[in-house]
């Protein structure tokens, strides 16, 4: 069999470089997407864990605040040092700070270096020797890892300027950290300083991000964890560094599932291209197949030959795909980081580290299997060809659909649609992401199958119009479509699949953007907003001290100022939800009433304002099964808080849902005086520009603050949503490339199949324009059918994703906004791409060598 493969298949592959490239290309695109996403997903998990573990030094336990961006009082560290089994407890600030006049950020790490065990816990080793305690006693001193200093071209004695809550601040590089120390070994750009200097820089009044606990060697970590839990009560959570990394990794796992599903869609498209290419190859090679059968090659040997061919192509393409995937992972890493930041409010600086053997093997296996599966049907068709039929050059109408076959395809599509409906019902009932993915895949398969009877139907119905418009060329086109309806359907499906994917992405994007921006614009309104310039990776600004509030309120022209505090990682049961604390002005019937889904705003809002009740978001209610009137038990720094849910509202602040409560209640119960944003309402008498200038002036000593007008705030949110979906843009581009290739291939094989027909027409005097018109008319029908089917398929797919999958996959409940503009743009682009793809085969049609085509060999 290998001999037949090497003698026949390899030569065929070499002889048809375009088709071979397409077969390889289909799998390369799919595998590269899958391996890139797999690499990035792994990297996300690894980097969350490494980041948490490495910066924890030898600490085996950590105390963190209930919310991911909440902080703890530093005194906890001193209180806990006396707990039995605890060797040392160290307060830590672990934050990200921007370098002034630079886009770079440094990871600020600070601890109490007066604690003699700090140096040993974090492996702080000074280059050339030295005591960190002495060096960092100067509040203007900091340490940098050797490699960071090299990268930033800094030496001992130089200064590094960073922006903090109190404005720009310069730190002297007092010494360098040796590369073999725990912190430096992470490879991150740390800026190490004493805890007090960091608190001052970030304006954190005796607050820290966490407390690291180092137990005695002979102590039981589990026992200490239990003791610490008792000691801190509800004020903090006791976690392991590994578990904390896992916690973040788990939080983004649904997003990882989503991007992986999207990458599988790319692989599905790749499979489709392989199917198309192998089908076209079978058509163009039918004479060779007939010859082989005539000289004694068995059906199974033909089948095995094609299978071996597809496996060989699969292995080669998957290997290339893996390499491209590694490259793609590098290119997509910033987009993925951005997307995760916007959706989950976590900073994930993902950098693809390179190809991993496990990922490579998995991707090569998957790609090869897909290539084989895609080739099985065409291979079976090739093996089933009767030798005499295969040796007959005349158009045989083998591709034509009979009524019964057309019905089978329609029936199969209908069965798949029924499966989609069943899966969606089950998805809602069982909250199953997997069922949603099955529904989505089944829907795409359904309209791929539906494209076959659709082309058949169109060829019949459009025949009069084609003949009327294009004359003889139209008739030839309609005959060709009817004769090769299955092959034409492949082109239609490729186009439709690509367009539907684009519309799905665009629909999701628009629904996400409009829902969030609409919410921000009408609910979180005001004329200006004042907030930190910095975020933790997403759209949510870093918390700022609410002490700034009186300064803004007293600016002339300011009517009132409302505050917003969002704790994005509040632990509710096993989930990570949003805790949204709003000042009283937000809780008015006029303002909040329209956002109520359940409950009566006029009754509910006074109770919430008083701190006697809470609201929950629609997705919180759905995901956690909390209903109106139910009591909600929350852990706070002051102990458990049990309040009734008096309203279910629309809210887009967290993917896992949000609890909405009064600012005063939050500040008191969680002991957190910070806010994320001030919404400033001004009197209409002052010019907006002058008003903004006055606000900027009022906070001019705070370099970390920004003042935005409402329109700028909306643009800020829109830009973040666009960042979240930048990944989709890359996928769209890949899809278009694949579509282009697929249509070229299908039309090229159609032309190849009709060489004899063109030659005969040429003999009886048909000119090249007639032949070109015929091919163009055929492609016009294919393109129109593909676009119509794609728009329909995409619209339904977008509806399914927004209404069902997105909720169970990522937690958001969005309003559906159909992307008319994007659809028109994509349809136009697809039409242009497909028309360009037609041009090549149309030219080939006119260049058919008449005598050559009329000869059989």
């Amino acid at each position, binding site marked *: 069999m290998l001999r037949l493969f090497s003698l*026949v298949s390899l030569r065929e592959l070499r002889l048809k470089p375009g088709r071979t490239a397409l077969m390889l290309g289909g799998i390369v695109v799919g595998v590269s997407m899958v391996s890139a996403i797999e690499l990035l997903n792994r990297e996300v998990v690894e980097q969350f864990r490494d980041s948490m573990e490495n910066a924890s030094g030898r600490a085996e336990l950590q105390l963190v605040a209930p919310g991911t961006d909440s902080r703890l009082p530093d005194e906890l560290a001193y209180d806990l040092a006396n707990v039995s089994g605890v060797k040392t407890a160290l307060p830590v600030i672990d934050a990200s700070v921007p370098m002034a006049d630079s886009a770079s950020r440094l990871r600020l790490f600070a601890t109490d270096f007066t604690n003699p065990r700090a140096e040993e816990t974090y492996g702080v080793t000074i280059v050339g020797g030295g005591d960190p305690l002495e060096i960092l006693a100067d509040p203007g001193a900091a340490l940098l890892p050797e490699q960071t200093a090299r990268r930033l071209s800094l030496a001992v004695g130089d200064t590094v300027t960073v922006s903090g809550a109190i404005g720009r601040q310069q730190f002297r590089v007092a010494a360098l950290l040796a590369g073999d120390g725990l912190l430096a070994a992470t490879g991150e750009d740390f800026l190490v300083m004493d805890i007090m200097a960091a608190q001052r820089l970030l304006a954190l009044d005796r607050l820290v991000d966490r407390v690291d606990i180092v137990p005695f060697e002979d102590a039981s970590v589990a026992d200490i964890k239990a003791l610490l839990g008792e000691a801190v009560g509800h004020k903090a959570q006791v976690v392991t560094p590994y578990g904390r990394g896992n916690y973040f990794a788990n939080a983004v796992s649904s997003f990882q599932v989503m991007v992986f599903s999207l990458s599988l869609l790319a692989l599905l498209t790749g499979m489709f291209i392989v199917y198309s290419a192998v089908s076209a190859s079978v058509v163009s090679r039918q004479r060779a197949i007939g*010859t082989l059968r*005539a000289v*004694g090659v068995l059906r199974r040997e033909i089948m095995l030959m094609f299978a071996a061919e597809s496996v060989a192509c699969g292995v080669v393409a998957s290997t290339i795909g893996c390499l491209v995937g590694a490259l793609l992972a590098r290119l997509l890493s910033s987009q993925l980081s951005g997307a995760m930041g916007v959706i989950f409010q976590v900073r994930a600086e993902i950098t693809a580290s390179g190809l991993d053997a496990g990922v490579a093997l998995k991707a090569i296996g998957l790609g090869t299997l897909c290539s084989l599966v895609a080739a099985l049907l065409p291979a079976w068709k090739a093996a089933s060809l009767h030798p005499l039929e295969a040796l007959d050059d005349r158009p045989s109408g083998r591709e034509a659909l009979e009524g019964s076959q057309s019905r089978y395809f329609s029936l199969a599509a209908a069965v798949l649609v029924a499966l989609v409906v069943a899966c969606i019902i089950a998805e809602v009932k069982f909250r199953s992401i997997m069922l949603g993915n099955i529904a989505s895949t089944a829907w795409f398969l359904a309209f791929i199958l539906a494209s076959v009877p659709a082309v058949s139907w169109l060829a019949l119905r459009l025949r009069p119009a084609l003949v009327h418009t294009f004359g003889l060329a139209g008739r030839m086109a309609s005959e060709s479509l009817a004769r090769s309806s299955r092959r034409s359907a492949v082109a239609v499906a490729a186009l439709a699949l690509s367009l539907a994917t684009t519309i799905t992405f665009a629909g999701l994007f628009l629904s996400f953007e409009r829902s969030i921006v609409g919410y921000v614009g009408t609910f979180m309104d005001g004329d200006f907003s004042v907030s930190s310039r910095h975020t933790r990776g997403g759209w949510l600004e870093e918390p700022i001290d609410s002490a700034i509030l009186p300064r803004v309120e007293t600016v002339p022209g300011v009517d009132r100022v409302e505050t917003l505090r969002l704790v994005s990682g509040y632990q509710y049961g096993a989930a990570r939800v949003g805790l949204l604390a709003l000042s009283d002005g937000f809780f008015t019937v006029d303002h909040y009433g329209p956002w109520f889904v359940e409950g009566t705003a006029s009754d509910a809002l006074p109770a919430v304002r008083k701190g006697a009740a809470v609201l929950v978001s629609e997705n919180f209610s759905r995901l956690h099964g909390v209903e109106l009137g139910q009591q909600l038990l929350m852990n706070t720094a002051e102990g458990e808080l049990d309040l009734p849910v008096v309203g279910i509202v629309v809210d887009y602040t967290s993917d896992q849902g949000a609890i909405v409560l009064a600012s005063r209640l939050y500040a008191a119960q969680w002991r957190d005086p910070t806010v994320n944003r001030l919404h400033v309402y001004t009197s209409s008498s002052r010019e907006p520009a002058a008003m903004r200038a006055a606000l900027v002036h009022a906070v001019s000593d705070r370099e970390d603050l920004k003042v935005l007008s409402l329109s700028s705030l909306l643009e800020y949110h829109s830009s973040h949503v666009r960042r979240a979906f930048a990944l989709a843009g890359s996928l769209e581009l890949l899809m278009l490339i694949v579509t282009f290739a697929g249509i070229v291939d299908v039309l090229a094989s159609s032309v190849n199949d009709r060489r004899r027909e063109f030659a005969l027409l040429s003999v009886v005097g048909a000119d090249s324009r007639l032949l070109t018109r015929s091919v163009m008319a055929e492609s016009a029908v294919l393109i129109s059918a593909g676009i119509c089917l794609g728009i329909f398929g995409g619209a339904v797919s977008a509806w399914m994703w927004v209404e069902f999958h997105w909720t169970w996959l990522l937690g958001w409940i969005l309003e559906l906004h159909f992307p008319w503009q994007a659809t028109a743009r994509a349809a136009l682009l697809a039409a242009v791409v497909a028309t360009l793809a037609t041009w090549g085969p149309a030219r080939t049609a006119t260049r058919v060598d008449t005598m050559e085509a009329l000869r059989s*060999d």
Partner: protein
Amino acid sequence: MIRFKNVHKTFGAGDNQVCAAQGIDLEIPVGQLCGIMGPSGSGKSTLLHIAAGLVDADQGSVSIGARDVSRMTAEELTLMRRREVGVVFQFFNLLPYLDARENVELPLLLDAINTDERRNRATKALEMVGLLHRATHRPPQMSGGEMQRVAIARALVISPRLVLADEPTGNLDSAAGRQIISLLRDINDSTGVTMLVVTHDPVWAANCDRVVRLVDGLVSEDTYLKPRDSVDSETNGRPAVAETGGKNGRKAATALQ
């Protein structure tokens, strides 16, 4: 010996029905070069395709030697073409990307015959058709006559019991056609392989041992051009003039000898 016994074959249905064979009885002894002639649609090619196992007979049987072709499975028929029956087509059917030697080696390759033996047998077959000097040329670099000679070499390389040729000169000019006729005649003389050749070409008549004429799916004439005993001892004692009339109104053949 190849024997057709009451072979019937109909294509199509209803008004489009075409009877390609309406009860053909024919025996071709070992070593005979038998030409099948007749007008278009008379069933010549169908008869040959049935013998090659490419088309199933609706009724009747075909046997090659002791084996009943009509009872063989599709796989057995394919293996028969690979090992026992060489088929030559009007349109050559060579693989364009293989050179002459590789095309000839193709059936041997399928049986995993070792490279040396394959090479030797292909060389001998190419030598036999006088194309050894073109062994490394590919079909597009050859003339029609040369391509047909390669196809004949491919049929011969398996040392077949039977060679079936479907209008082997139909796609060639007269000079090339004469060369192919002469070649097949020589091969038949030198190897003694049985040959069944479908042709329109009257030149064949003079070169065949026997010419069977079909009309409307029936044998209308069966003419021996060469003494039967010089071809096959199996026919000794039987009349030199084959009387094939009788059933279905078949005409009596004319004996030329």
